[in-house]
């Protein structure tokens, strides 16, 4: 950096600089480490430099004249400087700028230049504003008055002191109860909204703003940090976004439009009053509305009222722009549905940051919703595939006719994907195999295991007529495939219609009921056996029972007997057996459907597990 004659740096103190009449660029160059003290002055002998002595350890001091404070975005420059010294989260920095901007405005306008709040409120536009300041700034005494900004890091956060050389200030002095920080027309409301703590010191000449930097933001800001705009590629989304700017002042609209275009917003619409605003919304729906509150004719409040009554427009986020720090007005706007408030005078950093924040959040929500829909569709597909594995009504009918039996089945996964499956395998004219498998857990992993099992069964089909051998071979396969802790219970039964027998093998499947002949009482059958998929050397027992015409075989998963029923406890295996013994159930044309109807009436809640069952009854 070439030597600038205006700048006098102390050789013995590289942390100090004395600068004459700095402009914004000059400040930006100097408000960087190792500088801790930057004072506007003519030289090292300038009395202003005496301020240095009072700077706290580890603190920063910027001292400028009113003329400079008017010409330069002081709050922004100071915050950038602080951020170069201390790690400050982005959203805290914006809060700091917003609050500091108010404090500096106060110090300049009301403090040093002695412009009253009422005078300020009477100002209608930027030109009148400049004019109002011209006279006091022309007074060399007032223009030379200083504004000091001092940053002091402390345990409870960072405190910034803004000091002016005006007459001091006591909010609501003379009000019964004494002075207190309430509505004052000095942006105290705004400062309180963006700083952790606000204090007035030294007769009101110093405003102390404390910012809590240690607090963990556990609201949306933290979430936004975890998944930044970069992760979600906001660019194209911003290009497609449409923002509507509503303000009666054309210059304001154009300025804001410029800022928004600058951050990549593709479409910025404008409206000069409430009516035009509603017309614009009807013409093209914006993603966000920036709404000035104080407009002639149809003001911001009325617009908010209308928007909340419109079902389509109600969900569009609205940022209300207001110079008022009247808490009532702000609360009213919020009550009428405003999403957030941005204070005037507007700063591009605050406006663009807030706009980006809301659009980013919307984008994340859209991404999430899109993902949910896609996953939902994929799960739907997988669910259909699972359903296809299991015999459908047409296949069941064919089997019934072929083997002369009634086959009643139910297949109800508890979530999109289940761990249950059942099947029927014709083994020639006289033999039919039925199996029911229940994989541990549910959801995607259990469903994957179901597909594995069905594939293995297809491969080992030739062993199906021999239940024990079949199970042992399947077990060998699954042991190689399944991780520890995953397993299945499985029962595989072969009905021989010619030999009137039932041969089965079971891997810990408890849900087996058999009756012998039409009058035989239905009873639980022994399903003892090692879980399938745990130990590769497992051996399975083959059991043989009489199965004359009229006999029934019922296979069912544990959802049926482990679901709580009214009266306490679960249905239990004996409970299912008793239901199956009921006359109205065992004589029903569709016995399983009848049993489930009775079961559902007794269950306190729908089963939380996959419910699969099949009832075969020989004619």
């Amino acid at each position, binding site marked *: 950096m070439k030597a600038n004659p205006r700048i006098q740096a102390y050789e013995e103190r590289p942390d100090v600089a004395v600068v004459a009449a700095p402009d914004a660029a000059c400040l930006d160059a100097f408000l960087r480490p190792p500088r801790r003290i930057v004072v506007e002055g003519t030289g090292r002998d300038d009395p202003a430099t005496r301020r240095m002595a009072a700077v706290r350890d580890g603190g920063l001091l910027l001292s400028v004249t009113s003329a400079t404070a008017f010409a330069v975005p002081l709050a922004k420059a100071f915050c950038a400087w602080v951020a170069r010294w201390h790690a400050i989260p982005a959203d805290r920095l914006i809060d700091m700028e917003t609050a500091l901007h108010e404090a500096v405005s106060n110090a300049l306008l009301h403090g040093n230049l002695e412009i009253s709040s009422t005078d300020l409120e009477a100002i209608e536009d930027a030109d009148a504003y400049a004019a109002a300041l011209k006279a006091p700034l022309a007074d060399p005494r007032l223009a030379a008055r200083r504004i000091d900004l001092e940053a002091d890091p402390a345990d409870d956060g960072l405190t910034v002191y803004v000091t002016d050389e005006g007459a001091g200030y006591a909010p609501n002095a003379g009000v019964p109860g004494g002075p207190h920080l309430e509505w004052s027309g000095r942006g105290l409301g705004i400062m309180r909204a963006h700083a952790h703590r606000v204090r007035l010191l030294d007769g009101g000449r110093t405003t102390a703003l404390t910012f809590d930097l240690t607090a963990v933001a556990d609201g949306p800001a933290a979430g936004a940090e975890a998944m930044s705009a970069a992760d979600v590629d906001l660019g194209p989304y911003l290009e497609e976004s449409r923002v509507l700017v509503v303000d009666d002042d054309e210059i304001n609209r154009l300025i804001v439009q410029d800022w928004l275009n600058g951050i990549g917003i593709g479409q910025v619409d404008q409206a000069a009053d409430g009516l035009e605003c509603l017309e614009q919304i009807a013409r093209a729906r914006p993603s966000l509305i920036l709404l000035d509150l104080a407009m002639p004719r149809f003001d911001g409040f009325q617009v908010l009222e209308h928007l909340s009554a419109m079902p389509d427009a109600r969900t569009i986020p609205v940022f209300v722009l207001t110079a008022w720090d009247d808490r009532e007005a702000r609360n009213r706007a919020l009550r009428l549905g405003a999403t957030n408030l941005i204070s005037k005078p507007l700063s591009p950093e605050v406006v663009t940051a807030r706009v980006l924040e809301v659009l980013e959040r919307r984008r994340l929500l859209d991404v999430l919703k899109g993902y949910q829909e896609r996953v939902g569709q994929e799960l739907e597909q997988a669910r259909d595939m699972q359903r296809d594995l299991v015999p459908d009504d047409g296949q069941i009918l064919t089997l019934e006719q072929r083997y002369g039996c009634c086959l009643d089945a139910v297949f109800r996964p508890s979530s999109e994907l289940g761990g249950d499956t059942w099947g029927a395998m014709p083994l020639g004219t006289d033999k039919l195999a039925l199996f029911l498998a*229940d994989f541990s857990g549910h959801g995607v992993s259990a469903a994957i295991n179901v597909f594995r099992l069905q594939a293995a069964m297809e491969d080992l089909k030739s062993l199906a007529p021999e239940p024990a051998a079949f199970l042992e071979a399947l077990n060998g396969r699954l042991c190689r495939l399944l991780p*520890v*802790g995953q397993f299945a*219970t499985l029962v595989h039964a072969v009905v021989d219609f010619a030999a009137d027998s039932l041969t089965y093998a079971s891997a*810990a499947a*408890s849900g087996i009921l058999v009756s012998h002949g039409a009058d035989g009482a239905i009873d639980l059958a022994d*399903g*003892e056996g090692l*879980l399938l998929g745990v130990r590769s050397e497992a051996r399975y027992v083959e059991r043989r029972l009489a199965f004359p015409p009229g006999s029934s075989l019922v296979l069912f998963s544990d959802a049926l007997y482990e679901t709580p029923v009214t009266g306490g406890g679960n249905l239990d295996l004996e409970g299912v057996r008793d239901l199956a013994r009921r006359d109205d159930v065992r004589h029903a044309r569709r016995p399983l459907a009848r049993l489930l109807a009775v079961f559902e009436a007794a269950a306190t809640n729908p089963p939380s*597990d996959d419910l699969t069952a099949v009832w075969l009854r020989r004619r």
Partner: protein
Amino acid sequence: MAYTLARDGDRANVTLKGRLTFQEQMSVKQMIGDLQGTGAKQWSLDLHQLEFMDSAGLGLLLRMKKAADDAGCRLNLRVPGEGQIKRLMDVAKFAELVPIEP
């Protein structure tokens, strides 16, 4: 589900209370961590105070067995002489997978 852990010489005794189902994965993980932390070589799991256990619970016990095997420790279960849990373990011949004591 809740559990209590007590050290008894070279043995760590864990008593389970409540229901052992699919939802208890994290509790079981924590339990395994605690058991490994004791340095005990014998892990004993008492199921007498469990109200209910389903087949997913069996899966969690199998995972505990693997964790014990990996740590070079011996795991055994203490199971009530009758009731739902005994039945579940009998039908699955679970004693062949994890030693069971009354």
